């Protein structure tokens, strides 16, 4: 799906760990503002793809261009500075601090680079930005709670909010609803996707829950054994024979019918 407004262009991406091929022949273009779901069974290469785009893993071969600039070879920090952020399957937050302190640090790092980092962190400007983020992600009731005492869903929200405060152009979410109860998952995604839509962020998220995929994404990338086997709108992808066989599982599809 090559598009003139592509902000992310991935070409011939290959990742091997010795004899194990974790990703191969990955070619994909992502357009500004797209919401893309990445699906696949465990070990299909989804997180490996996310890790390569965000600099956690270096590809063995291939190219990843963001707004025309090559990302391969850059570290995680430089990729964050370039405008790509991520959240994690297991939320990566500062567990001994409160929700507000976590967000203040994220805001301070995003706003006080270089010598500015030697200035006071708690400024009125950052305080007002903090209030805005707390409101947008509905974290106000928990703002003074220590993170280690919070439920998984709140930690996940915080993890995503922290990734977004630097105002990235692309956000990669690794299984945002994992560990969240069935009753809460849609409310959770409504908060997240609503906030991200306001910012016009391009979102790629890894997801196992097909109901979430159908409801929130405009395009699906289906992974199988390190390759993309389908790149199409969600309805078409979920009806695709290969996707049904290798990703969703035929039984699941029959049940839905």
């Amino acid at each position, binding site marked *: 799906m090559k598009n003139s407004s592509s902000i992310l262009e991935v070409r011939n991406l290959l990742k091997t760990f010795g004899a194990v091929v974790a990703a191969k022949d990955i070619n994909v273009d992502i357009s500004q503002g797209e919401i893309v779901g990445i699906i696949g069974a465990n070990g299909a290469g989804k997180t490996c793809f996310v890790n390569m785009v*965000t600099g956690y893993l270096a590809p063995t071969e291939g190219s990843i261009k963001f707004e025309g600039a090559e990302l391969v070879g850059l570290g*995680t*920090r430089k990729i*964050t*500075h370039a405008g790509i*952020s*991520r959240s*994690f399957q297991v939320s*990566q*937050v*500062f*567990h*001994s*601090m409160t929700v507000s*302190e976590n967000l*203040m*640090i*994220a805001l*301070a*790092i*995003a706003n*006080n*680079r270089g010598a*500015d*980092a*030697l*200035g*006071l*962190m*708690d400024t009125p400007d950052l305080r007002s930005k903090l209030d805005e983020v707390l409101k947008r992600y509905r974290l106000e009731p928990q703002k003074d709670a220590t993170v280690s005492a919070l439920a998984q869903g709140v930690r996940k929200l915080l993890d995503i909010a*922290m*990734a977004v405060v*630097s105002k990235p152009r692309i956000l990669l979410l690794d299984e945002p609803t994992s560990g969240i109860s069935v009753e809460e998952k849609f409310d959770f995604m409504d908060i997240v996707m609503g906030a991200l839509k306001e910012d016009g962020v391009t979102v790629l998220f890894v997801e196992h829950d097909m109901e979430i995929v159908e409801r929130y994404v405009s395009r699906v990338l289906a992974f199988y054994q390190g390759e993309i086997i389908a790149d199409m709108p969600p309805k078409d992808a979920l009806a695709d024979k290969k996707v049904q066989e290798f990703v969703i599982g035929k039984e699941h599809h029959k049940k839905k019918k």
Partner: protein
Amino acid sequence: MFNDRTAKFLLLAALVICVGGAFAPNWIVNQFMFGFSRALAILGLMVLWRTGLVSFGHAFYFGLGAYAVAILDSKLGVSDVFLRLMAGAVVAGVAGFLIGFIMRNYRDIFFAMLNTAISMVLFGIVVKTESLGSTDGFAISASTIFGLSPETKYPLFVIITLVGLTAALAVNFYLKTTFGKLTTAIRDNEIRVEYLGFSVAHAIHLKYTISTILAGCAGALMAMSLGQVDPESMINWTVSGELVFVTILSGPGNVIAPFIGSLVFEVLRTYAFELAPQAWQLIMGATFLTIIFFLPGGIWSLIEKLGGKKNEK
């Protein structure tokens, strides 16, 4: 910088101590001089501890500061207290900055023991080098202040108190900056700090260098207070252990804690030695165990508990 409670307390305490010192007997003045000198090194170790790092080798920088004073005195005849202090800070700070390029890549036990290894190299060199005083060390002449030679130790006591005050205020401010706030964040989750776009290695390098400058100042002031340096009491690994002991005794809760902890340590050691000259280490060890079991947050946590306050992060 001066408008929070800690800063106000520090300013008031420094004033009271400086005035009180004029009327205090010599032994009390000495206890404060030794205690406050060491407290500077503890202040630096506190910054590292908050980051989740413990150094078992900061006697290296403490010793560098002390020996910078001794060598300036014996080889160049420099006796000015401020030049001596600056030399201690610069020598330790430059060494810390350079060694920091290695240290910032290590964590946990590797960070702790690599520092010990480096300090033992310096200890070995000093012990075996005649021109560095070997095991006997150096006697240091009394410090002068802008060319004046004070008759008592009181002026040096005031200078040590004011240097301690300045360092405590500076670290208190630093802990409120973005860099400073990253101490706990790095301890909790380095991956998140990196993904937020901040270099953990750079942050640790800065904290390490700050801690080495403070340890160098501590060594220089201790050397001037004692009038003597030798490898056993300035560089040996037991000195590093002592610094870690006082850091744990003090607690990481506030920049005031190292000063209280250091004073408590000085008094405790003096009385333990007086009560049981052959078994004073037993008393120190029992105190250490008591702190670990009952006050893991150090003396500062007890002060907070008594004051009914929450731990300051």
